[in-house]
């Protein structure tokens, strides 16, 4: 399960909406054991595309250091799908770097953004619950 405080959930969705018409992306800092997210790191999409994203490597390094400095880890990545559902694409699966990570998809295909989270282990996708305390 991924636990995402409402303020970080809103920050993540707002970053995705701001990125339109391109895909937006960012990293999530948290506790790798519990799956609780404590920090959201919106990053630039270097691919600058409506169909692809690349997290800016230097922003990734800064986020990683910030998270480590706070006793946390980067435990996942989020990105938007501007016109498709919140489900990992073959590209997402092929490039998923870490089986321990949470892969969060924000679909902007409909008026109401849809957020879902997945684990991707050796190409196998499994959805996990997203808990937003208070909502």
């Amino acid at each position, binding site marked *: 399960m991924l636990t995402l405080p409402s303020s970080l959930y809103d920050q993540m969705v707002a970053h995705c909406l701001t990125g339109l018409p391109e895909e937006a992306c960012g990293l999530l800092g948290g506790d790798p054991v519990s799956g609780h997210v404590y920090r959201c790191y919106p990053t630039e999409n270097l691919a600058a595309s409506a169909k692809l994203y690349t997290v800016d490597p230097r922003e*990734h390094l800064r986020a990683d250091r910030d998270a480590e400095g706070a006793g946390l880890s980067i435990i996942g*990545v989020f990105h938007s799908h501007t016109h498709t559902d919140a489900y990992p*694409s073959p*590209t*997402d699966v092929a490039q998923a770097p870490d089986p321990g990570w949470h892969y969060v998809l924000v679909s902007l295909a409909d008026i109401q953004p849809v957020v879902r989270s997945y684990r991707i282990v050796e190409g196998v996708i499994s959805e996990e619950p997203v808990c937003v305390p208070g909502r």
Partner: protein
Amino acid sequence: MPVQVNLPTVLRAHVGGVKTVTAEGSTVGEVLRFLVDRYPGLSGQVIDPNGSLHKFVNVYVNDDDVRYLSVLDTPVKDADDISILPAVAGGSTGAGEHHRR
């Protein structure tokens, strides 16, 4: 000369579970090849079969991404801090309407 190399979670299993290892080399390429020689589990993870930096990782010398420097030929000095992180990318390419639900 010895340098410290910080590894991402996904590669730590290949080096005994630690976050930081010591390596030697005067360029990024030498450092990475040193690591692959010492930790064969890293083979194919940081250097691709053509001998280039693997596209699925980013390597930094201190704060700088080596792809913006001289990639594997980037010089490394004593006490430089080298970090390896996964390249994080993807996208909706290939996602069809059949995924709508």
